[in-house]
């Protein structure tokens, strides 16, 4: 099987996944014990049957369930996501997502990057120097880091940063470091991201949140990186390369690191999954107006149709990450997609 065919197959398999996920979402929201129409209305409106009926009609709930299901699915498919009811009442969902999504992506990007740039090298270092003090410190750090709840870490980090002059001396103040930002927490300004200053400011704004969000992944990637190095070091081909006379840096970079990256691919992507979930909490603590917080607000305030649509967006994102993982796999491991693997 060629690699392209492998990717094609993975793509085809992700279609039923999206379909199943969206169907479950529909079922939970529209067939669950809560009447989505009544949740949309305020106390006063509830007593007004006309208002209720209007809401029901708008949601299409007066149709037979099956009909409603097909309508809903087809509108998702066409990205005809309608408008909001409670949150930012009446605005188009598409516009809302386009407004909120970039901030979450920006945050997610940095948290993935931080995790990879710190976690993987640290794990490789620990693996190459296994059973030394440095290894133990790094491993223990990774494990504890992984066990800390994100939202708590976020609170503590915010407290530390806001008192940074007190803690680290008056020369270091996070708010004014490099470029000034208006507040430690809050949404990054995505409009000026194409200017150098704007880029740094937007980055600085999400960096603490990204550090928190990526913390657990960092610990995990470190751990897996360490194990992968230990495993690869014992492979026959490393011994064979040694016997060939390959030594020092070439042996480490070419024969050990490259192979140790392979088991890290699924870890990095599955961590990206978790980042999406974790974004709700971290965005709430840091006050970032991202799609995670939008989801949370919609749930709390009872805009269930919006919850469903956002869930669909999240499903597309996770499935997309999965496909990205497969692409990465085929790039990094020549065995993928061929018979016998």
């Amino acid at each position, binding site marked *: *099987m*060629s*690699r*392209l*065919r492998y990717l*094609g*197959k993975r793509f*085809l398999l992700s279609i039923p996944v999206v379909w199943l996920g969206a169907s479950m979402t529909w079922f939970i929201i529209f067939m669950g014990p809560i009447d989505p129409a009544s949740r949309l209305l305020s106390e006063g409106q509830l007593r007004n049957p006309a208002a209720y009926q209007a809401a029901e009609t708008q949601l299409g709930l007066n149709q037979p369930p099956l009909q409603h299901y097909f309508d809903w699915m087809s509108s998702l498919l066409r990205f005809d996501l309608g408008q909001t009811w409670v949150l930012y009442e009446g605005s188009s969902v598409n516009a809302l997502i386009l407004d909120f999504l970039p901030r979450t992506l920006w945050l997610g990007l940095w948290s993935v990057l931080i995790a990879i740039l710190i976690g993987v090298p640290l794990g490789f270092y620990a693996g190459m120097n296994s059973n030394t003090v440095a290894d133990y410190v790094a491993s223990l750090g990774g494990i504890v880091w992984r066990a800390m709840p994100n939202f708590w870490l976020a609170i503590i980090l915010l407290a530390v940063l806001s008192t940074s002059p007190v803690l680290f001396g008056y020369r270091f103040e996070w708010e004014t470091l490099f470029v000034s930002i208006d507040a430690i927490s809050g949404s990054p300004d995505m409009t000026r991201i194409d200017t150098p200053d704007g880029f740094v400011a937007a980055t600085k704004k999400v960096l603490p949140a990204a550090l928190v969000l990526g913390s657990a992944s960092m610990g995990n990637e470190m751990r897996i990186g360490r194990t992968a190095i230990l495993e690869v070091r014992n492979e026959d081909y490393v011994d064979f390369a040694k016997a060939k006379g390959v030594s020092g840096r070439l042996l480490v970079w070419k024969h050990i690191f490259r192979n140790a990256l392979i088991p890290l691919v699924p870890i990095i992507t599955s961590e990206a999954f978790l980042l999406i979930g974790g974004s709700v909490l971290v965005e709430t603590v840091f006050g970032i107006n991202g799609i995670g917080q939008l989801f949370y607000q919609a749930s709390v305030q009872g805009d269930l149709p919006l919850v469903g649509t956002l869930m669909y967006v999240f499903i597309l994102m996770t499935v997309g990450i999965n496909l990205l993982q497969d692409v990465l796999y085929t790039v990094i491991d020549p065995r993928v997609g061929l*018979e016998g693997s």
Partner: protein
Amino acid sequence: MTQAIEPQETDGQESRAPLLEIRNLQIQYDDSSLIGGDPPVRAVDGVSLDIRRGETLGLVGESGCGKTTFSRALVGLESATSGEILVDGTDLTELEGPALREWQRRVGMVFQDPQESLNDRMTVGEIISEPLDAHDWQDQEEREDRVFELLDRVGLQEEHFYRYPHQFSGGQRQRVGIARALALEPEFLILDEPVSALDVSVQARVINLLEELQADLGLTLLFVAHDLSLVRHVADRVAVMYLGNLLEVGRTDRLFDAPANPYTRSLLSAIPGSASPAPDELGEITLRGTPPNPRYPPSGCPFATRCPAKIPPEKYPDLSAEEFDAIETFRAILRERARSSSGVSASLKRRLGIGTSVRTVDEIATELFAGLDLPPEANEVIEDARTSARSDPAAALELLRTEFASVCDRDPPAEYVVDDTGRTSRCLRHREEYDDPDEI
């Protein structure tokens, strides 16, 4: 020990009634379930064979030839794609549920790796009594007695009852495996490479045990192995398997003394050392290449791609062996190229003008045919093929196939009886118009 069956005569095996009659058995694996369009793997590709009561039948072949799949099908571990396995007139391939279990009660199976085939969280006692439990064999106490009896039978001690497989050596574990296979007093024992995971010094004891058991219990044995010396020692009859086909079946002494099929001959000749069972006059035959992928078996004789005695093409009967070889190699290379360049990415590359270098096909051809003095007509065909290979390797292949096709590439060989003991061999050279394999 248990009920003694009258030892049957060792002579006149041919007249013994068959226990199993296997007719045109085919087993295919289709793993590309939903998407993909690879043809299925033809693990067993039309095998017909009788297994006679009380005999030891050796089944030999290289890894991946389908011998294990075949033996597993006999206990219902694999399902047949087509064909039948007849026992007393019933077709095993159609059995299910209780009927299949009833047959499984009559068969015992011993597996290759005793490390793998014994559940290491169970004591030896539990392992051996499991078949008895599964078939609700009498009551608890009698089952225990039976296990002790079996332990004794295979040369283990009673205190081994409460030990775990980890505490045993490889040879002892295999004895446990044999005891388990014997638990339900089967009449037929399938031994799938029973000693190949053991050291030579331990092998001998297990083999001796098996021979004793057969003599005492009157068992029918199917002995699957890749080690021909071992098979010669234990088997009454031997079946040689290649790419899912039986190429030669016959009495052990005859088959080893005068192998009829080119594959059997090559296999025997490949055994190294002075203890090799190959007849001296066989000489050294080294096969080229590897067995073909069972997804894409050759259309004619399964062995044609490697056969040292392949019949030359009809159009060019005067080609020397060397020349024929060169053409065959050229075809093999083109075949590989055609397959590897059929993928999407390869055609993409070709369009972009990167990758697959046509230059080298030419080079190879030049090298292959250098120093050979091909007949002019043949040379012309080769030149044509080389030209068209630059743009379209598939067309070149087709041209070569029609021009230099041997009957071996075209006709699957039938079974030919090759001696007075009823030994059969599948090779077109047994046809009257060709020289016999041993004359090449």
